[in-house]
């Protein structure tokens, strides 16, 4: 105990120093900027300093001890494990994308906010304390022990690798975007720079290095997330608490909506945009006959522009359109299908920010909102890289507190995200809409350069109407420092925060995959007599291979990546959640039931996802593919229960294991000595 306390004290001291040091670093950079340090250099310094820092922690925490490598020696105090889980959990998508998603979707986007926080209630009540008591290394470990035999373990490995790999690819993609944007290097190079940042940690020190780096990364990401919006809130409302103040700003936004949405010019633009839809529909319908005439039209347009001596930019655009012109019917279908979705999105009438279920069919919207929230929550409680973190606390008691701290630290970001959206909307609705296109605010022209903001003067009146503006979701958080008129150092800070979010999540995920392969497949299934040194060496080797495959996949820039992330939640939820929860709460659940349940859950989930997304299957009850788990999770539960009931109950040893897991410490138990 005394040793634990001194360790905690030392940690508090280190991280307080570290936080103070980081703030001093920010102030120093701000001063240097005032005396003329170019913004490009600020970007470089931020990236190098933070990646160097993570590498330093990784090197200091290097280890060859098995328990240190897999579970950080099981001595991470609840508070720090909470921070590490926060960084592990909050990805590039949460950090950069969330504010923008809420901006674009209004109330409907809140399904993500609720889903990604409420899931921790399930972690706390059903999983964390029991997994900690079980006290092994991975989630498949629990499945293997509880449901005896390699089969349950193996399905667990498949689920863990499938969910984690899709997710890690998206993180590395995020790292590539951030490094390329702020360092001005090619995306593909950025991916591999980021990869180096990820590997120095997990490769050298496994869970131990990842844990202590994640704590450092959490501190950076939360400072980076709060600073711009706090300053913006101070500028707009005079009070530096955006979470409380955005209510009054929201009212102003709602007032402005009434004016902007009903502006005759806005309606005129929407009409003009709507007229662009039927010709696209027709040319898709008329395929393949329409292919040749459309090509001739594109050629004629280019010739026309050249004859008129038009603006070189317009000519360039027409040339590009011609070279990218689809060659086959299939290509045309895909390209024009995209064009059609784009045109429909643009012509859609805007909806009020706070209005719940604004669509034409509020009941289906309501159902989808609930289904998505449900899948995200259960998915949160089933993602192996999160559950694994609760193996690292010193006790069951600490594991319970640790879930509390995890959600607390995550909560700080998610409950600020809606404020970002509202403040940005206020700025756009009051200062951008209705302004002269020749005289746009500076932040708009800056982000328009790289295509994250597009303004097209559809009705040629020289004034911005809402329907003429297209915003990429990422721009909301990235541009807030400029909207608030803050120095470049704050923009650099935001980039460093986004990088921290992406790197920390990628680290946790890579480790999960490498551990599933090295610990569960190699050690438990292939060579149970392998010496410690070889087990760690194999884990490190696999880590490197998986990281390189993931980076390569990310560098392909597949459109699919973003859908894959959303799917990872349903996949993890349907595969793991029923088997884990029933394994703890229902003694009668046996291996036949669990194996059948996991297969049914995973298969139904994949069938629904692929069916709705790619094969034109009619969605059941109108539920979208992103919420595939809505059917797969209950199916998993029902299968486990039915199959278990018609097959023999689990053995006495397994029943004792369940009792062992349910009580933090049964005095006098035989199994007591095993942990």
């Amino acid at each position, binding site marked *: 105990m005394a040793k634990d306390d001194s360790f905690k004290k030392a940690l508090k001291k280190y991280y307080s120093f570290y936080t103070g040091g980081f703030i001093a670093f920010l102030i120093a950079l701000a001063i240097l900027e005032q005396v003329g340090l170019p913004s490009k250099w600020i970007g470089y310094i931020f990236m190098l300093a933070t990646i160097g820092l993570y590498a330093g922690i990784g090197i200091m925490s290097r280890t060859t001890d098995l328990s240190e490598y897999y579970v950080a020696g099981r001595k991470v105090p609840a508070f720090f494990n909470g921070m590490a889980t926060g960084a592990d959990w909050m990805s590039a998508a949460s950090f950069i994308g969330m504010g923008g998603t809420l901006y674009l979707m209004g109330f409907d986007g*809140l399904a993500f906010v609720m889903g990604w926080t409420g899931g921790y209630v399930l972690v706390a009540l059903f999983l964390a304390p029991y997994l900690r008591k079980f006290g092994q290394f991975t989630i498949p470990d629990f499945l293997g022990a509880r449901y005896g035999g390699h089969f349950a373990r193996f399905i667990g490995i498949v689920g863990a690798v499938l969910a984690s790999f899709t997710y890690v690819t998206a993180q590395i993609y995020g790292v590539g975007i951030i490094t390329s944007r702020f360092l001005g290097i090619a995306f593909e190079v950025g991916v591999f720079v980021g990869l180096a940042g990820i590997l120095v940690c997990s490769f050298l020190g496994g869970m131990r290095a990842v844990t202590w780096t994640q704590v450092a990364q959490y501190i950076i990401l939360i400072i980076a997330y709060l600073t711009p919006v706090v300053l913006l809130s101070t500028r707009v409302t005079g009070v530096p608490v955006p979470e409380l103040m955005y209510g009054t700003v929201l009212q102003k936004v709602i007032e402005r909506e009434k004016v902007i949405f009903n502006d005759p010019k806005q309606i005129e633009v929407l009409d003009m945009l709507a007229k662009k839809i039927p010709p696209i529909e027709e040319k898709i319908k008329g395929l393949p006959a329409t292919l040749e005439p459309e090509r001739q039209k594109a050629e004629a347009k280019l010739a026309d522009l050249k004859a008129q001596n038009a603006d070189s930019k317009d000519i360039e655009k027409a040339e590009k359109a011609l070279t990218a012109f689809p060659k086959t019917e299939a290509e045309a279908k895909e390209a024009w299908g995209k064009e059609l979705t784009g045109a429909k999105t643009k012509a859609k009438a805007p909806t009020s920010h706070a*209005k719940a279920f604004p669509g034409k069919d509020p009941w289906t919207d309501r159902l989808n909102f609930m289904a998505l929230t449900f899948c995200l929550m259960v998915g949160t409680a089933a993602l192996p890289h999160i559950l694994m973190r609760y193996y690292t606390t010193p006790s069951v008691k600490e594991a319970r507190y640790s879930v509390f701290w995890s959600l607390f630290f995550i909560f700080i970001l998610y409950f600020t995200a809606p404020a970002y959206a509202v403040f940005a909307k206020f700025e756009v609705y009051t200062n951008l809409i209705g302004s002269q296109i020749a005289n746009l605010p500076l932040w708009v022209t800056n982000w328009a350069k790289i295509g994250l903001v597009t303004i097209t003067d559809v009705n040629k009146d020289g004034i911005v109407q809402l329907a003429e503006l297209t915003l990429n979701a990422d721009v909301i958080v990235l541009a807030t420092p400029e909207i608030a008129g803050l120095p470049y150092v704050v923009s650099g800070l935001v980039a460093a925060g986004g990088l921290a979010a992406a790197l920390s999540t990628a680290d946790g995920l890579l480790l999960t995959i490498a551990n599933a392969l090295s610990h569960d497949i190699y050690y438990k299934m292939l060579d149970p007599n392998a010496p410690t040194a070889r087990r760690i060496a194999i884990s490190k080797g696999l880590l490197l291979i998986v990281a390189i495959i993931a980076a390569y996949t990310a560098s392909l820039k597949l459109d699919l990546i973003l859908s894959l992330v959303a799917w990872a939640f349903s996949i993890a939820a349907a595969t793991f959640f029923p088997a884990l929860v029933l394994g703890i709460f229902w003694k009668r659940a046996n291996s036949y039931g669990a194996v059948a349940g996991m297969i049914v859950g995973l298969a139904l989930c994949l069938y629904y996802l692929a069916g709705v997304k790619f094969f034109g299957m009619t969605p059941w009850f109108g539920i979208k593919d992103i919420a595939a788990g809505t059917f797969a999770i209950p199916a998993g539960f029902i299968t486990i229960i039915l199959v278990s009931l018609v097959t023999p109950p689990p053995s006495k040893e397994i029943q004792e294991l369940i009792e062992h897991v*349910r009580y933090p410490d049964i005095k006098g138990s035989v199994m007591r000595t095993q942990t």
Partner: protein
Amino acid sequence: MELSERHKEYWSKNLVITGVLLFTWFIATFGVIFFADQLNDIVIFGFPMGFYMAAQGSLIIYVVVIGIYALYMNKLDVDYDVAEE
């Protein structure tokens, strides 16, 4: 090994608190979503309540639910003599 009556009582108390907190979670999530439209008619400090609950209110409830569970269970461990040393 045989579990004593005390042990069984501990577990059933655990199930009760788990059930109560799960119910709270369920209302804070699906109750709020279901009635979001109606809640939106109430406006406090500029926040329409349906929007507010989904953006902040329910999140606060989640944090509190987990906090209560941790405190309650850690005390229950001591009361029933199953706490770790």
